[in-house]
């Protein structure tokens, strides 16, 4: 399988200019003003507040955790202290005591396990990342906020559309409770000329059933990583069905390209680190963390399955690769 790797970086102002090309100027101005109101998300022109001691806790479940932690360490320098979680409860407790002893105002938790561990540090700002199901991490509040795992849907749809100009109708199936995120995604899709249709299922079985019955009406499937309704067999069934029926599938992991996925979009660790650091800085000197519960990423790492693209009569040009 030949995979084309593309990382897309979107400058928000540039993105805004591109997005609203042809839109009446007044609306563009209003939108730009609205976006500028999201101060927490925008880089400040003044010197960023300094971070003195930020413990970065992460597990060893996924290599990407370590990559993100390393990126943050690189960016924060001595202010960052890495705490790779040990499998030994005694050591974990010792690590916890070490952190508490230094009384840090902010903690970074990379991954679900680190998040669960970090909740023991009461009264501190916790910035998490690499957590798909926030309900598993505990309710977000003003002191607990995070960074999205999924790269910006807009970039995905833009990239997908450039690859497959005829793409018009895409199905996304998830478990319940993601209406807000899906609404944003729908909007991003619509901005790229794609109609994103959402189906809610409760089980992997229902996922497959729903997809097989609905697939004929859609050109593609956006396989969102919802662990509640996905199983290995369900993904295999969906991917197999898609290949057999010539459906384009955007997947969340390059691993699934081998099953017939057309394009995969995953977060860029540096981008994740940047967004986490941004949230940390925004919270310096405050009791709470400003901004949305989950900050969006700005960059995406795309990979395209050339073989599948060929089978689907899609042209993967240089430009497409960005």
């Amino acid at each position: 399988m030949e995979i084309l790797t593309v990382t897309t970086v979107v400058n928000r102002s540039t993105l805004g200019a591109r997005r609203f090309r042809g839109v009446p100027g007044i609306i563009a101005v209003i939108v730009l003003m609205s976006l500028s109101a999201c101060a927490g998300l925008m880089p400040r022109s003044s010197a960023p507040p300094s971070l003195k001691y930020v413990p970065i806790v992460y597990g060893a479940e996924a290599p990407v955790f370590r990559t993100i932690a390393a990126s943050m360490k690189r960016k924060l320098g001595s202010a960052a202290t890495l705490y790779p979680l040990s499998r030994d409860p005694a050591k974990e407790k010792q690590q916890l005591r070490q952190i508490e002893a230094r009384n840090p105002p902010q903690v970074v938790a990379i991954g679900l396990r680190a998040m669960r561990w970090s909740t023991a540090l009461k009264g501190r700002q916790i910035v998490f990342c690499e957590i798909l199901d926030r309900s598993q991490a505990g309710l977000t509040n003003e002191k607990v906020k995070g960074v999205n795992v999924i790269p910006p849907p807009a970039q995905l749809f833009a990239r997908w559309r450039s690859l497959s100009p005829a793409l018009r109708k895409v199905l996304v199936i998830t478990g319940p409770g993601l209406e807000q995120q899906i609404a944003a995604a729908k909007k991003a899709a619509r901005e790229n000329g794609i109609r994103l249709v959402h189906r809610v299922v409760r089980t992997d079985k229902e996922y497959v059933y729903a997809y097989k019955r609905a697939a004929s009406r859609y050109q593609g499937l956006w396989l969102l990583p919802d662990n509640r309704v996905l199983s290995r067999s369900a993904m295999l069934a969906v991917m197999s069905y898609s290949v057999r029926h010539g459906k384009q599938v955007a997947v969340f992991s390059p691993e699934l390209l081998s099953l017939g996925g057309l394009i995969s979009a995953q977060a860029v660790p540096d981008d994740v680190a940047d967004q986490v650091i941004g949230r940390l800085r925004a919270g310096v000197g405050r009791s709470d963390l400003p901004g949305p519960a989950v900050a969006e990423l700005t960059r995406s790492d795309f990979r395209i399955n050339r073989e599948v693209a060929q089978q689907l009569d899609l042209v993967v040009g240089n430009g497409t690769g960005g």
Partner: protein
Amino acid sequence: MNKKSDNNASWINRLTPWFTNILAAVRSKVVRAWSRAVQIADHLHQRFLRPHRPRSIVKRLLYLQSLWAILIYLLAVSGIWYSSNYLVNESLFGRGNDWLSKLDELGTPIYTSRGRKSFQRIRRLLSESPELAYVRYFDAGGHKVLAQFRKHGKNKIGIPPISPNQLKRLRSTGGTKPTVVDDQSIDSVYRIIAPVWVKSIRADGLINYRLDAPGVEHTRIIGFIDVGLDRTRYLQSVRTALIYGSLAIALILFIANYFGRIIVRRALTPLSRLKDPLAKLALGDTGVEVESVGDEEIAAISQALNTTIKAVRERDEELRKIANHDPLTGLVNRSYFMREVESALGALRGDARNSALLFIDLDQFKYVNDTVGHGAGDRMLIQVAEALSHRIREHDVVARFGGDEFIILARDVDQSGAIGIARSILKRLQKMRFVEGEHSFNIHCSIGITMISSSRYSVDELVSQADMACFEAKRRGRNRYNLFELSDHDQKNLVADVGWSQVIRNAIDLDGFVLNFQPMVSADDDGCEMYEVLLRMPDPEGKLVGPSLFFSAAERFGMMVEIDYWVIEHALMAMKEQRANGRDICLSINLSGHVFEDQALGSRIVEALEANDVPGDRVIFEVTEQSAVRYMDSAASLIRSLRNHGCRFALDDFGTGFSSYGYIKNLPIDFIKISGEFIQEIRSDRIDQVMVRSIVDVARALGKKTIAESVEDATTLKMLQQMGVDYYQGRFCGEPVADLPKERVPLVANQG
């Protein structure tokens, strides 16, 4: 895959013992039935087709071949049946799993919030499948039926719920979805049950997702699917396969068996060819020749058989020659000759011409024997036999009939022709001279002729006629022939002889003889109490007569040996009876000379002694001097043999024959019985006195006892006592009596 394999294994484990039992039962029944059938067939075969004959190896092989064909057929049909069932169950299992997979997906709405209405849509799909008997969806508990489908016509099937045990097995979540096959609870339905699973990936399982990452999923059972497949459709296929398969195998086996039978028959043809020659050989036909062809083994057998047959044939011919010929002269013997005469008589009934019997008796042969000895007499007989053989025509028969008696059957002659033959024989013998050492003898003979012109007379009667004619020729002066002419007297004699022969035959067959016992007392009156056994026979009028009246007829008709045996057996039986009553006696039994011709005499006497529990030393056998001399070798051999068993021998009528002391010396006898001729006139005849004294002296010198016969008075007895005779027999000592005396007979002279 593992679960499927487990299911297969459990299915095979369930089926194997059952199938093994079926096979064992079938095999047992088949073997018993076949064994019984073979027994019946064998019985019928032996009873009706080949009574008392062993079975043919060809048939046995063909039976075995047929048996194998049947066994192979049964095994093949069983194999087809087993394979078909196995394939059907495999197919059912595969189809069941396919349906489970399909139904698992189709039934998804049943387990969603959208409810069970959607099941109505798939009901139509299910109803179009003929192999589905029913489908049931259960809840996660496995008890509540959420939706079900039953094929039309299967509504009456009583479908059992999922048992707790089945639920337990179905809830065991492993790598593969478990299934439970239940093909026992519902007839004609193959039931297969599987759980309905849902899975979800661990909360952080999709971060850096890898397809082969272990342990990232959770499995949950949300229900069960119970599918019943209509087995009857498959069983119908099995039956059809079984019928066509078994017919095809039967046809193949029939053809193979048919050609196998041909091959077996051809292979065993060389062996079968041996059957007829061997059957003929078994019937005594040694003229058969076994064809020495075929395989190496058969050829070897054939060659061996031919060699054996040849040896048997040569021995047979030798035995036949011995049986039919006189060992001394090489001429045919009496029995063979009689058969030839019988055949000549039979030929008269056709268009054959008359024949003649010529009875030849050498004149003065006894003189030759007495003069130059027995061996010379034998040589003379051989010379005469050769002369007669040269004289007769090719189709005539010459036989030695007795000691110096010859008889010729001249075929196709009339009376003048027969007379011509007699004359030529007389002439030929007259020209012959027998030279033995310094002695030279003329050979003369008397010839009696009788014509065989009708079947009016029997062979015995014809021989008697020739014998009588010969006797008449001798009476007229010897060295002549005499043609039998039936006078009244001759007729009477002939009738008398024939009549005696019938009486004797009856006496032998019906135990008509009577034994009398005459005491032989001893001078010192100690030792064993002795009696001579005397034979008596009732004549046609019932009066007991002595052997002098019927022995000639018995000899003529060849019944002397039988009479001897009769006397021996009944005398020993009488002794047994006496011994049972506590009396220990000795019996002296007379043997005729003819008995020495019987090779079995010695063994038969020993058997009779043992049968009657009589010690050999209580029996004395009396042989005449003439018999002993005539059969010197065989007599001496027999005497020695029986003496080893304790028997004793007496030389009877000593003095009347050759009276050679050399015979006494050479014969291993115990007693010398002095002829009555020397005793009857001993009171007045000095020669008799000298003779008796001489015999006693010689006997004493040889260690033998003497017995004097015909002791008629006390004077004679006293003289004999003075001469040293050991035993005395005669009317004076004791009359012959039918019943043995209960006490020892005393010696009267001693008492007086």
